[in-house]
């Protein structure tokens, strides 16, 4: 059975991506797994003392966001699983794809009006496809659900 891995966060763009993945799971009768990556690279910009376990707090936030995605899928009649991983997004995504045996990866396009960002995302998608052998779908905000 096919497995769709949808990497997501929680913003408006992510909701569109989640709905697209739910629709794909419906039409392909596939398993759906929502992935959240607790990537704390932004902390490297910090110059102040970071004495708190930020990664764990962000993991908790990710679990909450994925639960919302799961409820969204359930409302559409699609059962789904959730997975939270810690680390750099690209590496965590490859690891998760191998772990769940993904046959398709769905990614959102966070800034569709930014060509540089879009091109970077396509490059990342290409690398991930090369590393996992799995098709990567980038969902644009203009894509119909």
């Amino acid at each position, binding site marked *: 059975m096919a497995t769709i891995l949808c990497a997501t966060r929680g913003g408006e763009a992510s909701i569109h991506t989640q709905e697209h993945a739910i629709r794909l799971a419906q039409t392909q009768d596939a398993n759906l797994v929502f992935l959240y990556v607790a990537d704390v690279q932004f902390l490297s910009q910090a*110059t*102040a*003392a*970071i004495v*708190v376990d930020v990664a764990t707090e962000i993991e*908790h*936030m990710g679990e909450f*966001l994925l639960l919302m995605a799961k409820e969204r899928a359930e409302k559409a009649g699609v059962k789904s699983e959730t997975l939270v991983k810690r680390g750099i997004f690209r590496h965590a995504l490859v690891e998760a794809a191998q772990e769940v045996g993904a046959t398709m990866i769905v990614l959102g396009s966070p800034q569709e009006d930014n060509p540089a960002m879009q091109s970077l995302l396509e490059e990342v998608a290409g690398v991930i496809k090369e590393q996992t052998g799995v098709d990567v779908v980038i969902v644009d905000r203009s894509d119909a659900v």
Partner: protein
Amino acid sequence: MIRRTLFSALLVGLALWMLRPDTPVTALQGGQSESRPELSGFLTDSRGQAISDAEVLVFLNDAAEPAVSTTSSEDGSWVVDLPGTVLESVHIEVERHHYESFSYRLAESEVERLRMDGSFAFNTIVLENQITLGFWVAAAAFVFTLLLIASERLQNALAALAGISIVFAATFILGAFNESFYVLNMERALAYINWEVIFLVMGMMIVVGILEGTGIFQWLAFQAYRVSRGRISLLIIVLIVITSVASALLDNVTTMLLMAPISLQIALALGIDPLALLIPEILASNISGISTLIGTPTNILIGAYAGIGFNDFLINQTLGVLGAMAVMIVVVLYFFRGELKKTSGGISEALYNKLKENARIKDARTLKWSGVVFGGMLFFFIVGESLHMVPSVTALLGATLLLLLVEPDIEKMLRVVDWTTLVFFMALFMLVGAVQEVGLLGVFAEIMGNLIGANLPLGIVVLVFGAGLLSFVIANIPLAAALLPVVRFVSAGIPGAAESQVLYYALSMGAAMGGNGFIISGETNLMTSGIAERAGYPISFARYLRIGVPVTLLTLAAGTGWLFLRFALTGG
């Protein structure tokens, strides 16, 4: 257990040694005797600031070599006992790097007075600054460091180390070929490090490191969600109050790293834009820390430099901070008025339970002890001044006691101490010392002094808004560190300002409130933005600007108004 006890004992011992009373720096040479004649005087620069570490050489009876010598102390005073020989002529020379040498031969009548009275006090000797190559090296190193920090090309600690390394390279390598490159030696540089700041920051890091794991902030935020029962305006105000209290007692970045994830979840549970909770929290965090000595790193710097205690900040800043907070709340409620009207359809039981789970108290035993010790620390921060107990000792004693009570993994505790921040402070102190040593800060202070004159209201406005607007783009810690000697000089020229320390409070308000201007203006803002971005709600520069700039300008005005009321109109 043994390792932890040894570590604790080491911490306390080290703190007590570092914070021991200063020993007099004046060292007399050539032997001393109560009956010997004595020469004394004061050294200042052209701005009336005391000059320490200047070498005073006394030549007797036209000898080629000095009979005695001494160095001036921190307050610029110097005193020497002369050897018990027949005095026919007395000639003194004063030398110090970065100043013109001074030479004076006592008149016959003055030598006679010295012989008759057994002592002679000089009028204050004024040394003129000398612009050397070292001046330009120190100035370039300081500007270079600020640019590295502002551009984020290097981590702060590394940038400050690079700056002070340039100074040392000029002093010791270039200075060996051309003395004009001399800036300051290691002994002088180390003397500029404020160990009270280092130990206060370190002690608080340990306390916060233990407290953060208990989950108290997340639990409080969840209680705010429950109590507000879907009333968004009430929720925003309660979260602002929680963030403010936490930021006043702990550091702002830590507070926001704990508050932001749970606030995001609460916002999503209510179906509102998470930025309606996060941005007010950022603003509150940056403002409220001003009211206590330990609330912001700049207050720690200011407190240690000017001897302003925990109670002084509370008494002189709290009402101003409350006024600024009230202004900020009105503005954010207006700015997010669209969100206030939204009504939540409620969340599923699963989501509610998840939120509750993420906000639970994780370690009740540690929380209990942390509460007891932190309460004790607050007590000693307040009464410590009457016991001559500096805040850094209170912080270290509290940290050590907490370590002993909660028995955490000592290796983990050593990891929560952010050594890079401590290195940053040390390197920064030395670098600011270097620019102070060569007279650069004196030049800037003179310009400021000429601008402000003896006008206290103008001084308050310049300091609050000047530091505030500069903090939009310059990291406020190096800014405050560099401005402290300037504030001291300007305060000396305004009647009553040195005693009331009002301009230090103005610097405190400006530097902290200015951090609210742009999303890039402060660490708190950037870290919160990072978390929001991880949830898919990036805080764009433009969106933040629309609320950050008006709130900053209005709160700076509120802070200025308070300082006027407290000091300029009522005389403090």
